[in-house]
């Protein structure tokens, strides 16, 4: 290996990742703030009114990002959990634990904003439809993962039990994604696909910017949360004791 190569595994050590995450999160938080301001401006002042749904369609600018992140965060969580199960790395379990609450909140938001959209357009807050039901199951999978981990005292064993649940539950994500194709459903199909987008350019731009803003927010908040988890679980090491001594005096 050349000496100029980046030693990625160095960052897999919780100690190194703690300080790396501390340096990175403010950048993601700043990007999230700027993109949210731009995205909201486009959502309300640039994107035109929809021909069919009037102003009500503007819910798309929070509904689509929340739904997309709820699914993607789950896959990342299952990925970290599976990696931890296979290679027994300490950081993997901590990352999975840090991802779950954010994913659960996105799934919750997807359902709430979906209800706010369903009521005026379909006439019902909720229907037992394939898309909605599979998204509800996703929320329950997140909550089940968190409850299972919380119920096991030994963190390494909690990681393993949680990882199995996360991996088995991952089958639900493609079911959510393809549910609008596989079953007859009230929910509309994807607005953006490989064939191109079925919406006006400013609407699409606003939606994509909001998606990226949600991404940046999720990364920032997960980095912040994993820092607390690393401190808690590496509490017996000298470096954590030093961090506590220096930072507790400041905060």
């Amino acid at each position, binding site marked *: 290996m050349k000496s100029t190569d980046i030693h990625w595994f160095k960052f897999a050590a919780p100690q190194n990742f703690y300080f790396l995450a501390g340096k990175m999160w403010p950048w993601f938080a700043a990007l999230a703030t700027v993109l949210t301001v731009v995205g909201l401006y486009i959502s*309300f*002042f640039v994107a*035109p*009114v929809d021909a069919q749904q*009037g*102003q*009500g369609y*503007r*819910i798309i600018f*929070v*509904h689509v990002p*929340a739904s997309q992140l709820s699914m993607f965060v789950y896959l990342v969580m299952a990925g970290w959990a599976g990696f931890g199960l296979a290679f027994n790395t300490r950081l993997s379990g901590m990352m999975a634990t840090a991802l779950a*609450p*954010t994913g659960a*909140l996105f799934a*919750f*938001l997807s359902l*709430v*904003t979906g209800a*706010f*959209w369903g*009521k*005026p357009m379909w006439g019902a807050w909720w229907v037992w439809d394939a898309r909605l039901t599979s998204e509800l199951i996703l929320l329950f999978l997140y909550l089940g993962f968190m409850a299972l981990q919380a119920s096991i005292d030994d963190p390494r064993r909690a990681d393993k039990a949680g990882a199995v649940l996360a991996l088995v539950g991952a089958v639900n994500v493609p079911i959510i994604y393809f549910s609008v194709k596989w079953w007859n459903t009230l929910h509309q199909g994807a607005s953006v696909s490989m064939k191109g987008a079925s919406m006006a350019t400013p609407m699409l731009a606003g939606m994509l910017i909001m998606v990226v803003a949600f991404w940046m*927010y999720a990364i920032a*908040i997960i980095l*912040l*949360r994993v*820092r*607390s988890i690393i*401190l*808690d679980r590496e*509490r017996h090491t000298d470096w*954590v*004791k030093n961090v*506590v*001594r220096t*930072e*507790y005096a400041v*905060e």
Partner: protein
Amino acid sequence: MQWNSVSEFLNMGGYALYVWGSFGCTALVAVFEIWQVRAQRRAVLRNLSNELESNADSKEAQS
């Protein structure tokens, strides 16, 4: 500009409850999560700091 007045903007073409409900819930969730993450960090630092102090006390008592 697509809005002729502030009230027209707030009315959202009759969809005010649904549009503002969605954006409002999203904002509330973000505020809650940011508070939760900060509270968690303070709690972890407080616990570990107490643990360090009690360990130091017990060592002094032994010596």
